[in-house]
């Protein structure tokens, strides 16, 4: 928290260092992603349970998996938050008590909640759970934040529409933890105030059924006074779009840290482990480097490029630095191929022989140039020389999903390191 007299930084041995380091909060759609996120440097992860969470299509966690995830995270001193941020209907009320008790019992640190029903039920039946207000409440001013502070919440996630200046004002006026998005997909509507999915596909967007109708194309017309439909586009124009580019605030991380934002959140529980690993490791580096020496910090272009390796949509800074203009939207295009593709997960490395054991995640073959990355190593590339299967048979390609193969690798690797190749 940044009260007026709270310190973000201190002078140590004549050099300014950041003493209030924000939490790096990462998405984890399943247990494997949770482990990857934590291993790659997330201070906390948010996950969805089987119910009450907003990504009905994610392969959400069972209570047993949540327990295992919490145990894994605890070894790293990382926290696990569970999203329970639907706007509940009457039919969702039965079972809520038991579910929240089970989360508390599984050792979950907090829940991310939008509906006062779930806030008050958690207080009553699972008081050890921290309660964080979800961005689904579209919280956009300090007085509303004060309301939730008075309701006893530990943390609020602000609306994605809030600017840096607004965050500063909120921080000054209210003593509560603030979580803000730094990276990932964006609702282009105020969160919680969009029911396009309900209308277009009978899927309830505020209970996890969102079908992303905001990413479809529409044609803009005007009805004239005499009832004619006049197109407001010409033949060569791309159709009307409300689709927002993904958020990318890598260059704003120093500003966020100086504002005293308590938790920096990456969006994307549906994303792959390659995405989670890449994004978490980049932001980990940015935050650590800035906090260690803020006055001599510069963004390294290789970090920016690294994020591009897993990005399949264009990115923008949204509301953080001002009001989003047309360059924040995607017209005509929907997605692009990532520059790189996840090719393998490192399971082991034999320092004697220089042989890595790799679980195949995509086709690769001798002659391919691959890049290795991970929290223990500097990125490096090399050409695949040989591939053997587990029985030592030489392969002309690793073509079977999840096949375990052996590959000679020049530099030491560690379990959970990843191998990617350029598209």
């Amino acid at each position, binding site marked *: 928290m940044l009260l007026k007299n709270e310190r973000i930084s201190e002078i140590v041995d004549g050099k300014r260092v950041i003493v209030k380091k924000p939490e790096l909060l990462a998405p984890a759609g399943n247990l494997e992603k949770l482990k990857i996120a934590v291993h790659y440097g997330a201070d906390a992860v948010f996950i969805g349970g089987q119910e009450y969470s907003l990504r*009905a299509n994610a392969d959400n966690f069972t209570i047993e998996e949540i327990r295992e995830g919490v145990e894994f995270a605890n070894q790293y001193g990382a926290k696990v938050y569970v999203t329970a941020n639907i*706007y*509940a*209907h*009457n*039919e969702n*009320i039965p079972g809520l008590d038991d579910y929240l008790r089970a989360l508390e019992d599984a050792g979950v640190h907090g829940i991310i909640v*939008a509906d*006062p*029903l779930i806030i*008050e039920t958690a207080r009553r039946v699972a008081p050890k759970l921290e309660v964080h207000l979800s961005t689904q409440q*579209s919280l*956009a*001013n*300090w*007085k*509303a934040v004060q*309301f*939730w502070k008075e309701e006893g919440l530990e943390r609020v996630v602000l*609306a994605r*529409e809030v600017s840096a200046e607004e965050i500063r004002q*909120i921080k000054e006026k209210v003593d509560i933890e603030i979580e803000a998005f730094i990276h990932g997909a964006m609702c*282009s*509507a*105020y969160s*919680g*105030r*969009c*029911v*396009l999915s*309900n*209308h*277009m596909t*009978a*899927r*309830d967007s*505020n*209970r996890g*059924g969102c079908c992303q109708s905001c990413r*479809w194309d*529409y*044609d*803009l*017309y*005007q*009805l*004239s006074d005499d*009832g004619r439909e006049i197109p*407001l*586009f010409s033949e060569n*124009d791309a159709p*009307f779009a*409300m689709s927002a580019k993904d958020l990318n605030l890598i260059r704003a991380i120093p500003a966020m840290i100086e504002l005293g934002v308590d938790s920096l959140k990456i969006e994307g529980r549906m994303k792959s482990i390659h995405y989670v690993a890449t994004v978490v490791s980049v932001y980990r580096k940015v935050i650590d480097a800035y906090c260690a020496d803020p006055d001599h910090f510069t963004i390294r272009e290789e970090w920016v490029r690294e994020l591009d390796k897993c990005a399949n949509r264009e990115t923008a800074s949204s*509301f953080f630095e001002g009001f*989003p*203009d*047309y360059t*924040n*939207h995607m*017209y005509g295009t929907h997605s692009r191929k990532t520059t790189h593709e996840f090719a393998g997960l490192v399971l082991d490395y034999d320092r004697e022989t220089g042989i890595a054991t790799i679980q195949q995640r995509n086709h690769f073959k001798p002659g391919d140039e691959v890049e290795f990355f991970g929290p223990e190593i500097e990125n490096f590339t090399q050409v695949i020389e040989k591939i053997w299967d587990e029985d030592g048979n030489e392969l002309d390609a690793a073509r079977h999903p999840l096949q375990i193969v052996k590959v000679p690798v020049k530099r030491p690797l560690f379990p959970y390191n990843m191998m990617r190749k350029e598209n």
Partner: protein
Amino acid sequence: MKKPELLVTPTSVSHIDELAKAGADAVIVGEQRYGLRLAGEFSRTDVAAAVEAARRHGMNVYVAMNAIFHNDKVDELADYVAFVADVGADAIVFGDPAVLLTVRETAPHMKLHWSTETTATNWYTCNYWGRKGAKRAVLARELNMDAILEIKAHAEVEIEVQVHGMTCMYQSKRSLIGNYFEYQGKVMEIERKKYEKGMFLYDKERDHKYPIFEDENGTHIMSPNDLCIIDELGDMVNAGIDSFKIDGILHEPGYITEVTKLYRHAIDLCADDRERYEKEKDDLLAAVEALQPPHRRIDTGFFFKETIY
């Protein structure tokens, strides 16, 4: 039998007289600086005149303050709340808790109606806002009839349900129409055009037309059809639903008046002479259909629709 209030949306002060004659019990007014998606724009002078007009006719007046507020307007909320209390309006409609705190501080006796449009989806949460000071909850439009009746059965606050008109599907802070013109290079047209009426998005796959407009609160996209359940009021009247709302946004004042007359008749019949209501309800529905502009059909919204997730 208790009759639900018939709440309507005037487009101007003079329209209130017509709506009173048409049988409305209450009106909602306000300005886009504080309120969302109003049928008319009412300055402070207009709000004062609206209260006066409503008093003459024995109607209630509710003032909309249900915008999503950013810091820039927080400090002026108290002044507007004091103004609304001063002119003697009957309630303030809010969604943002900043308004609730401001009313507590500035005009603690002012009645509050909780209305976020999309998030009033269960009875517990309606009662939660009741405990925080709201006298009424305005239900989300995405609920079905059974859910509405169940909420009413458990509610400790008044329950308002929209029975007619357009509903909002999407609100963005972004300037989506202006941005699109800018993207097309039609910079000269942006200021002239982006606030114009009559724009819609065409969805080829569903052959639907969604009205879209921009104002101070951002970009709003509305439902392709007008909700109309004039022939299905019985269960809600039996359950004692407190208020039926006709939302006339983006419709002509004459249309709103005529629809109000039909609902007045329907509610009266439904409460006083159910047998006749059952006989006449199809005619009432046909009468609404006859009023519809050519590009707007009616449907029953989510009242009888299964939504999955």
